[in-house]
């Protein structure tokens, strides 16, 4: 890996299943950490609309990995898959805000080490929606080459 894993935070905005104090604490401390991250309002909603953003987030061409603060790893895995954006099981770590403390979550998010924890596939090509979608004309949004 050449860089720290990317960070994705899900706010689970349309339900009360993730405790508000956990969501707010994680978001606050990410905001204070001065690191780049992606924040989405609700992964379920994006999966339902097959939002192409999920393909962008799931794509890991550099192999740097992805850490996702959301809910249960099994749910996250299949939400991405349902949107045609399967996650790489070898380079994805999901931190469950329904059960973990905000301290544990933020410590893992900001750590450079990655502990992949998606449930294992039972067989190849288990995704119903095929492979990761094709991207057109990637545009770098990172500070080295400002947009």
């Amino acid at each position: 890996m050449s860089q720290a894993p990317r960070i994705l935070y899900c706010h689970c905005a349309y339900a009360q299943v993730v405790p508000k104090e956990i969501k707010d604490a994680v978001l606050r401390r990410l905001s204070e950490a001065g690191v780049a991250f992606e924040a989405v309002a609700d992964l379920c909603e994006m999966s339902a609309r097959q939002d192409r953003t999920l393909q962008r987030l799931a794509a890991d061409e550099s192999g740097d990995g992805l850490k996702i603060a959301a809910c249960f790893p099994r749910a996250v895995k299949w939400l991405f898959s349902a949107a045609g954006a399967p996650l790489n099981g070898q380079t994805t770590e999901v931190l469950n805000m329904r059960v973990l403390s905000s301290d544990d979550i933020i410590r893992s998010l900001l750590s450079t080490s990655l502990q992949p924890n998606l449930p294992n596939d039972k067989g190849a090509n288990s995704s119903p929606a095929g492979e990761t979608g094709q991207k057109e004309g990637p545009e770098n949004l990172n500070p080295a080459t400002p947009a």
Partner: protein
Amino acid sequence: MALREQSTLRIVLYEGQGAEPLEPAGRFAVLRDLLENGYSVTCVQQKGHVSPHDRGSILVMGRFLNDGPADVQGAAGTEVRFHNLANHDLSSVTSIVDSRRTESAAVRQGEWKPWFPVIDYDRCTNCMQCLSFCLFGVYGVDSAQKIQVQNNDNCKTNCPACSRVCPEAAIMFPKYKAGPINGDVVSDADLNREKMKIDISALLGGDVYAMLRERSEKARSRFGKERDSDKALKERQKCLVKLAESGDIPPEVLMSLPSPDEIARRAEEAKAKAQAALAARDSQAPAAPAS
């Protein structure tokens, strides 16, 4: 417009080169407000990295030095617009984004609670019980006769009933309160419990919709004698409470069901779809070797 056809606006909060950073408390407040209003935000900082853009509209906001970059109309419909937050009250950011969203014709998110089934294909055996059970056309099959969720916005909010008929606990509702339906690990006890629920359903009269039809018909004959519609409604609700409890189906979902005849028609249609899918799947399967 169907959910999958709607376009959204990507918001980028830019604090990299050429922009002054926001104060952490202000950054948190802006982010939380945007997220609560259904926007997704890419936070660009000096440290760390984010994923590239693919296509669609982007609004880049930041405290840019000088006047900030000019808007860009890119290829393949990509439009990049900039908004300089220098000298702006950060509490106005969401209203700025709202008006930019309107200009870009992107959809307003958050007007539909995302409640729909998510299939765990590591567990699913393609038995079609969910397809046969659902009256609302949520499920369908792909060209290979594999079960899939095709019309997730048809799903009845807070109703997890199809997950309870799945013998493999392969159907999740990530916003459900408890496991394994919420995506938690499936235990042997969960599988036994799921099987037991089906047995109870069978004991109650074959399927949940047959029971519903019977109750609705009884209730309808009673309604003819009722003068007080509120009282009739309460009576109907009472009749459906047991059914709601047996499948954890919200009473409001049951109350919104169509007429018994329509329910019967849809149930037959769903059953026929499932049988056709199973027959097609079996005909596509390679022949078993001769013994």
